[in-house]
């Protein structure tokens, strides 16, 4: 499914995101943003929408800054 067809708040799990894919997504994000997701963020909610991912990344970057 192309990302541009999803709104920022669309439920990624409803769009077909699996738990396997969410880990792969997370590894991709860690590589792209040069961050490491802390244990407390490793849950369903963190990857539930594009907006949720954006919030998580900003939070990690704020904590690192």
């Amino acid at each position, binding site marked *: 499914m192309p990302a541009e067809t999803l709104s920022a708040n669309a439920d990624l799990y409803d769009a077909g995101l699996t738990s396997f894919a969410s880990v792969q997504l997370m590894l991709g994000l860690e590589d792209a943003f040069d961050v490491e997701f802390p244990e407390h963020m490793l849950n*369903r909610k963190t990857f539930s929408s594009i907006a949720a991912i954006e919030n998580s990344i900003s939070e990690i970057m704020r904590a690192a800054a």
Partner: protein
Amino acid sequence: MSNASAKIAHLTAPRQRLAAALEIARLHADDLDRQGRFPHEAIEGLKKARLLGVMIPAECGGEGASLADVVDMCGALGQACASTAMIFAMHHIKVSSLVTHGLDSLWHRAFMKRVADEQLLVGSATTEGGIGGDVRNSICAIDRDGDEFTLTKAANVISYGLNADAIMVTARRNAEAASSDQVMAVVERNQYTLEMTIPWDTLGMRGTCSEGFLLKCKAPSNQIFPHAFAEIAAQSMLAMSHLMWAGVWFGIAADATTRAQNYLRAEARKKPGSTPPAAVRLAETFVLLQEMKSVIMTGIAGYEHAKLNEDILSSVGFSISMNNIKIATSQAVSDIVRSAMMITGISGYRTGGKFSVSRHMRDSLSAAIMVNNDRIIANTSNLTLVSKYDTNLVA
């Protein structure tokens, strides 16, 4: 059963009421294993003891029994008859979905009341031909028409399908939904037909009658759970199924160990003053049994802690720890039974007799197969790439 006698039944604790059903289960265990038939007598006994609705909250007609209570009963039943215990466990996994995710739905509340009042046995149709045991994907889809829905599912396993009073079935939310965008619905016996497609003639667990069926149902749409199946699976089903199954497997392991101990004791009596050589093996088996028990009891405590916090419940670390319980206990049960067979020797290898552990052996081998350990480990391996192990020794 009248309301008055139901009230009397509730005066004693569930575990005490189980005693009579345990005797019945033990009495028929070998026969249903040989015939590969449903444990009618034992399930009737469980219904008579009013034990099918214990987990349902009192406000919906049950007794609000805890997960620990149910796992303990699974273990006790597992010592008597593994097939009966597994049916009891699978029924309660379904009931736990109602208890955890059905309280805010009028229909599901009313259904819970009926499960408790009428002692309904609830089955499950979560696996599907073409997908196999991966319960988190469906091919079939709900087809809504007004206030009703229809659904046809090629279910390759519906345990005790022909003896269930209702079945919980998963499907895609609608024809357009992704394979993982699932819902779960409760359908009652008069709302579905079952056409058997795959018989159940297996090595062990022969009494669960986990045949394959073509399930066709038509029911009111309000029988679909309001919560997504993804939520139900992650927040209650995963933990409940692994812990309740583990209880059953512990029961199998415990009874095999008891038989081995009885055998050794009889041997020792014949030669006073000397310890039989296999006594060392029994001591080692006790170690394994204790490990298994610890894994289950910490798992229950872990769930009770996690259920208060949705973030923990849906965390990667929690999924890994629940998966690990399944892997650890399903392997332990076979190891323990094998050890018991080495101790009991030819008496244990024989079918039947008070020292036989051959049924235990066959039943135990199902543990690694049902929700295949290889698939669980493959899922977990993806998660362990990123999740750090919780090394705290306090909860």
